[in-house]
């Protein structure tokens, strides 16, 4: 047993020490800042992607995820923004999570319009869900209710809270939000338990509960519907609600040199095509919608405009 442990620790030491000094970018390890705790959705996504990124970048360097949780993702975003633009610190952005505080005029030490965008990994559409045994069968049923509909969400200013506000205001449904749930799995549990009527859940969280019949989808925002029973933004006559989704974007500090940006963008797009990563996405029900830097930049400004018109609903 003792021998086994020793081999293990030697192996661990070797894996860290093995790196030479090649010329040109990248010649040292790259850090990916994750603004959430280890174990969360953004964290596992980046960690599953990192090995591919190492393969698709020249030179034998490591891509090291670094968790900087805190202040609802703002701490991580600030850290990326303030780093040296040398391509050795990049990070993942939770959109619109870090955009909303900026529109609320909360002092932030980052400015999303100046970030050097590298690409988009994927997005999570919002599912309008009710309990499996709910009498509500469609959004029309919901709007015909003679009372205000109750929803669950995390705190005011969070993406789920803002999305719930926007959907109901736009569709003219009277509503109340029960706030304070911890995370999307928190109010998912509340929905299954029957604390409230409905909730806007991200698809990756909702998927296995939709399959088990614990909850039922009435509508989907941020993606087209493939199910005739589930309405999408277009069906509801509110196509702009297609903007409602959580997007995982990769970015680097402002003024990143163009050649490094291109190198990172290409490695990112290539690693998202890797078989291994695809299999992981498939088994965990995670999404991938690769997009390049230009598309990502356009999406950021479109998203900013969209949320800006609902400014009064943000908090």
């Amino acid at each position, binding site marked *: 047993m003792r021998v*086994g442990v020793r081999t293990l620790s030697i192996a661990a030491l070797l894996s860290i020490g093995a790196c030479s000094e090649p010329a040109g970018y990248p010649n040292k390890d790259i850090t990916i800042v994750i603004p959430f705790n280890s174990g969360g959705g953004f964290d596992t996504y980046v*960690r599953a992607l990192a090995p591919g990124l190492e393969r698709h970048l020249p030179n034998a360097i490591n891509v090291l995820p670094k968790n900087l949780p805190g202040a609802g993702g703002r701490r991580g975003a600030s850290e990326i923004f303030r780093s040296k633009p040398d391509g050795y610190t990049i990070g993942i952005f939770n959109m619109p999570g870090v955009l909303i505080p900026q529109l609320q005029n909360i002092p932030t030490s980052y400015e999303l319009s100046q970030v050097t965008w590298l690409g988009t990994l994927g997005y999570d559409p919002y599912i309008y869900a009710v309990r499996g045994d709910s009498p509500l069968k469609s959004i029309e049923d919901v709007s015909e209710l003679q009372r205000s509909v109750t929803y669950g969400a995390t705190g005011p200013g969070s993406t789920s809270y803002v999305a719930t506000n926007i959907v109901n205001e736009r569709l003219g449904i009277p509503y109340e939000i029960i706030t304070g749930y911890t995370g999307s799995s928190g109010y998912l549990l509340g929905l299954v338990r029957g604390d409230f009527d409905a909730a806007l859940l991200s698809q990756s969280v909702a998927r296995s509960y939709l399959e088990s019949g614990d909850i039922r989808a009435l509508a989907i925002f941020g993606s087209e519907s493939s199910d005739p029973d589930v309405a999408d933004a277009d069906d509801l006559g509110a196509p702009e609600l297609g903007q409602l989704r959580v997007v995982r974007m990769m970015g680097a500090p402002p003024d990143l040199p163009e050649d490094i940006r291109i190198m990172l963008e290409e490695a990112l797009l290539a690693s998202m095509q890797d078989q291994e990563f695809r299999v992981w996405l498939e088994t965990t029900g995670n999404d991938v919608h690769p997009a390049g830097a230009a598309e990502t930049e356009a999406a950021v400004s479109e998203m900013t405009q969209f949320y800006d018109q609902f400014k009064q609903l943000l908090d």
Partner: protein
Amino acid sequence: MPELLLQAAAGLLSPETLIFLVGGVIIGLVFGVIPGLGGTTALALLLPLTFGMEVMHAFAMAGGIMGAVAMGGSISAILLNAPGTAPSAATCLDGHPMAKQGHAAEAIGAVATASPLGGLFGVLTLLLVLPLARDIVLLFGPPEFFLVAVFGIVTVAMSASSNTLRGLVAGGIGLMLSFVGYDTVHGGVRYAFGSDYLWDGIPLIPALVGLFGMAEMIRLSIEGGTVAADASAVRLQGVASGLRATFRHWKVVIRGSITGTLIGAIPGVGGTVATFIAYSTTRNADRDPDSFGSGRIEGVIAPESANNAKDSGALLPTLAFGIPGSAEMAVFLGILVLHGMQPGPAIFADHEQDIYGLILALTFSAILASIIGLSFVRWLAAITLVKGEILAPIVIAVSLVGVFAMQLRPGDIVLAATLGVLGYLMLRFDYPRLPLVIALILGETAERGFQQSMMISRGEWGIFVHSPTSVVLVVLIVLSFGWSFVPMLRKRLAAGIAGAAS
């Protein structure tokens, strides 16, 4: 189910898997011993490594860590009064006085049996209720969370040993501190003074490291001397009597294990509360509660049996809903997802064998940790003979490094040191720290549970007695109030009669 369980056992007992299990146990012990580090940090560091491993290997290692940190954490709690991990803080209360009286070996012996026994109890319970996991998790909604939090605060505040009034003051201050940061119900930011650090509230682990470990080290560096009164005190005899004591107090073990499993299963309440409640209920149920805190072995056995049982409980919401029952479980959740397992309704059906493997790893690791821990304890106990003048600054330095390693926030260092000074002052001026800690952990849960219940019921107070679970909780709260008032009243009455007679 039995054949899958056997298959899982066979998988776990293969030589390769055993290496990972033992590796996990050793990492767990080391991370457990160092204040500030703990299971969460160990798992977070392990997380990237597990990506390339086989599922069973990753689970063996994670299980090894989770089963072993408790033992490590309690060793430093007993020897130094500086809990290595948050849930071991309760073990300080009677474990350290035992060490001062030269009974460190006995206390550690009790840990070595109580903690795997608790673990075993938790695992058996988990195996029994696994098919019901979903329903159990659904029993707890906002009103129940509120009541559990109140129960925790009441139980612990009422058992503050020397001075109930000061216990309540400390609890009140803990509550006030727990409201710092973002208000998830109303959206305001309270008492953060514009700082992003305080936006997240006062973090538990740095706070505990400060209030217990650093406070004790500041005291030691002021008073000088060694932890144990003299060299003869650490002659390690009595391990066996400690081992036996656990079996003699089997009722305490069972109460502690039940408390651990139950409280562990409630997300957001977690392990530290479980061990504190196990300690407090054992103290309150004892015929001589005032003797607790001066080295009663039951005061070690109770929190220790809860300390390992809680992991099994915490697995329930983690697996069934992807809601981590504790901070460690949050990281473990990531290991699950990295291996392609999505927690949720289907996980028990899809990955039954892997889950059995994990459960078995948890059990074996607790036993292994005890054996390894006991064989090293002789050397570790020598720490209590090091001069405080040297030991204290070193422990302070190492805990500060550990605290920073958690989340890489410089603010954590400052917070731990500030609360270290506060903890020392509380020690010196005789204000109990326990109620402060419990209120700090549970204050926000209580407030949120209350506000959400009121929103759900639209202001109807009936919601707090609406479900059988909440009725049980209300009864428990009333009982734990009564339990501490009855002896007090009886004493008053007796004194009154005596006064009248004289």
